[in-house]
């Protein structure tokens, strides 16, 4: 039997790697992928605690998180396609139309 703390540390590692990806990468698609990693880490936490207390509600919340991830990926990638069509770039630090 693996202690719940171990799952928390795996989730923590995935979360931190995802945050590193969001703040250091320039490519918007990779930033979106890092957000997926973060959501995945959250799911591991939810399911691990669900296993700990023996209730299935954590699974339900994980399903909601997956639904949100799907919606976020669809909208985010739609924005990326629209932006790329207009500006021909995918780099987050070149997206500065609002800055002058």
């Amino acid at each position, binding site marked *: 039997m693996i202690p719940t703390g171990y799952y928390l540390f795996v989730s923590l590692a995935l979360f931190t790697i995802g945050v590193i990806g969001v703040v250091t990468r320039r490519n918007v698609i990779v930033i979106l992928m890092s957000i997926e990693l973060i959501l995945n880490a959250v799911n591991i936490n939810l399911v691990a605690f669900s296993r700990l207390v023996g209730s299935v509600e954590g699974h339900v919340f994980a399903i909601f998180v997956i639904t949100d991830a799907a919606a976020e990926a669809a909208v985010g990638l*739609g924005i990326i396609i629209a932006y790329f069509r207009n500006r021909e770039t995918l780099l987050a630090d070149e997206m500065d139309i609002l800055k002058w």
Partner: protein
Amino acid sequence: MLEQILFYFFAGLAILSAVLVVTAKNVVHSAVFLITALLATAGIFLQLHAEFLFIVQLILYAGGIMVLFVFVIMLVNLDVSLHQVQFNRQWWLGLLLALVLGAHLVIAIAVGRSGLPLGQPAPASSLEPSTQLVGRTLFTSYMVPFEIASVLLLVAMIGAVVMAKKQRREVGAKQ
């Protein structure tokens, strides 16, 4: 014993491929490593007696969402981005702050561990049969969030179509 080996295998695979997602230069490689990380997470779900989530993770995440990502990667220009610097100028500051955040969370878990009842998990039989229990909970206690999630998906679908479609009239007016 087998349980420990499987856990370390899946955890190591997930963390290793997550690191490769962030560090890979080519976006397609990032996507492939992300699929590996998601599959490893699915394995962790299976170990936690979440069979339904395991299947959902495989079909929806690794199957659906990643296909979407790969589609978009193929739609946008790949050759240009291969020659660009992939990390932004303040990457060292971001890395430092993210690591500080991670260390903070490690300390929080390590200190708070004694206060949390992390020792004795409930018997695995309380989560069986997984799919039936998830379905019953989803359609009784969480009926309203479930319906709201369906509306959210509809809004996201319409939003994605509206944003990704070509706006011919405006382009014509500008030219």
